[in-house]
């Protein structure tokens, strides 16, 4: 059932949503837009196509404390930190990010289940948002994502003066119920407008320059051939080994677990790791991937071959294009797909 709300009442909507749970949505901090907690004076930027970081933070935060060890005299007590039961809404998630959660689910919800992640998934409601003006860096279509009508618990579209609210799942419908005073039934004319908008969006999406990227050749059977490709050396030469691509990526899921000595005890936390880092998977004997080329290769092999091989052919990339936009030296997955994909098909 399509509902709608006049755009000038959007503040009331946020107020209402935030009254019963934490509301996260794109907020401007000195020109940079990231998902953040809504406050009445926050600068909300729903027009921003891409937040710098993705929405994965709310389910798989950059750092989280997992357990603490407290020292009293010579005794050590263990303190659990599992209190992720706060309900929250992430509002304005684009199609790519919405899809990325499926990819993370496959990692964190398979056995053994990551209880921290699971708790957050259960407590979080995704309000996704349709893209009307995609950018040249977008290539979600390559992974079968329809940015004009993204998945999510609720999907919204902002067209003209209206916000259209489409509750899709039980969770989404329940959320709609909690703000039903603000929403009215969309008319037939509205549905017409929506249809037209979706068509226009899809037309632009089809014209995107990266839309022609082909994933042919990234099959499991080509694993060794890809692994041994001489192109990795050439492609990785520019890589400076920073973690930008992995940290802005909505699907990167590697983490490290470290201990922090607080002086009163030990706080064990997990934090994002990046396969681009020289200390990634560093072990006592050293690093299993000694060169940046090996680390660079790992990232793309994982996204394009290892992951799909283990997950029914689903690639660990949603084509959000953040890495395309943010890489300091403009090396990215699009260039990798272009270089390696073509080399096989030729």
């Amino acid at each position: 059932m399509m509902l709608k709300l006049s755009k000038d009442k959007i503040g009331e909507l946020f107020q209402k949503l935030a009254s019963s749970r934490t509301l996260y949505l794109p907020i401007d901090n000195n020109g940079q837009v990231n998902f953040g907690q809504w406050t009445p004076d926050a600068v909300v930027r729903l027009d921003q196509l891409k937040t710098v970081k993705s929405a994965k933070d709310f389910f798989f935060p950059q750092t989280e404390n997992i357990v603490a060890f407290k020292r009293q005299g010579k005794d050590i007590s263990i303190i659990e930190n599992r209190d992720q039961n706060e309900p929250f809404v992430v509002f304005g998630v684009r199609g790519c990010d919405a899809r990325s959660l499926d990819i993370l689910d496959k990692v964190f919800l398979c056995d053994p289940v990551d209880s921290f992640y699971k708790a957050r998934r259960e407590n979080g409601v995704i309000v996704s948002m349709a893209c009307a003006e995609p950018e040249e860096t977008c290539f979600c279509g390559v992974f079968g994502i329809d940015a004009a009508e993204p998945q999510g618990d609720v999907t919204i579209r902002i067209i003209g003066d209206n916000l259209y609210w489409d509750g899709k799942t039980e969770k989404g419908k329940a959320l709609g119920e909690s703000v039903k005073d603000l929403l009215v039934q969309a008319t037939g004319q509205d549905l017409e407008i929506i249809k037209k908008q979706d068509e226009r969006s899809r037309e632009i999406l089809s014209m995107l320059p990266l839309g022609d990227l082909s994933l042919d050749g990234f099959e499991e059977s080509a694993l060794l051939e890809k692994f041994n490709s001489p192109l990795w050396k050439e492609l990785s030469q520019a890589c400076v080994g920073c973690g930008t691509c992995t940290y802005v990526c909505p699907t990167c899921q590697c983490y490290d677990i470290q201990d922090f000595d607080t002086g009163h005890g030990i706080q064990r936390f997990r934090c994002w790791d990046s396969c681009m880092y020289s200390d990634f998977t560093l072990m006592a004997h050293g690093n299993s991937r000694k060169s940046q080329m090996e680390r660079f290769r790992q990232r793309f092999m994982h996204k394009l071959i290892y992951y799909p091989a283990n997950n029914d052919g689903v690639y660990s990339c949603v084509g959000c294009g953040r890495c395309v936009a943010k890489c300091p030296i403009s090396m990215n997955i699009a260039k990798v797909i272009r270089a390696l994909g073509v080399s096989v098909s030729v």
Partner: protein
Amino acid sequence: MPINEKGGAFNPLIVAFCCNWRSYAGADLAGSSRLNYPVNVKVIRVPCSCRVNPLFILRAFQRGADGVIMCGCHPGDCHYTSGNYFARRRTALLFSMLDFLGIEKGRTRVEWVSAAEGAKFANTMNQFAETISALGECKRLEDIRCVESEI
């Protein structure tokens, strides 16, 4: 007496890095002359002021220090001839940077104290402790993970 957020009397924590040859000896002299200075001042002995790494200073603030003071030989009188000259440049720049980041500049200090200046050491510590008491708890460079109640 300033009151901290927890409602108790504010007892500032002051870390003093003292070079072994002059300032630490000056602190000893303050002791053997029975010159009082606040119990809040805790001295860490380093061979020379040039051994004081900015990491140590930030570490102290991270762990809840409210003020950090570095004492060394008077310029020109370094046991190692030039260590304090390097330390002087390093601290001038580092403390200027902390000020630039909005850390109250009263929280850092450099003082040259010779082995004969027990009284100067005690006076310096008294003054510094007063300054820090007036500034109150250091929040801006504190690491919340190190606050005891957080764990």
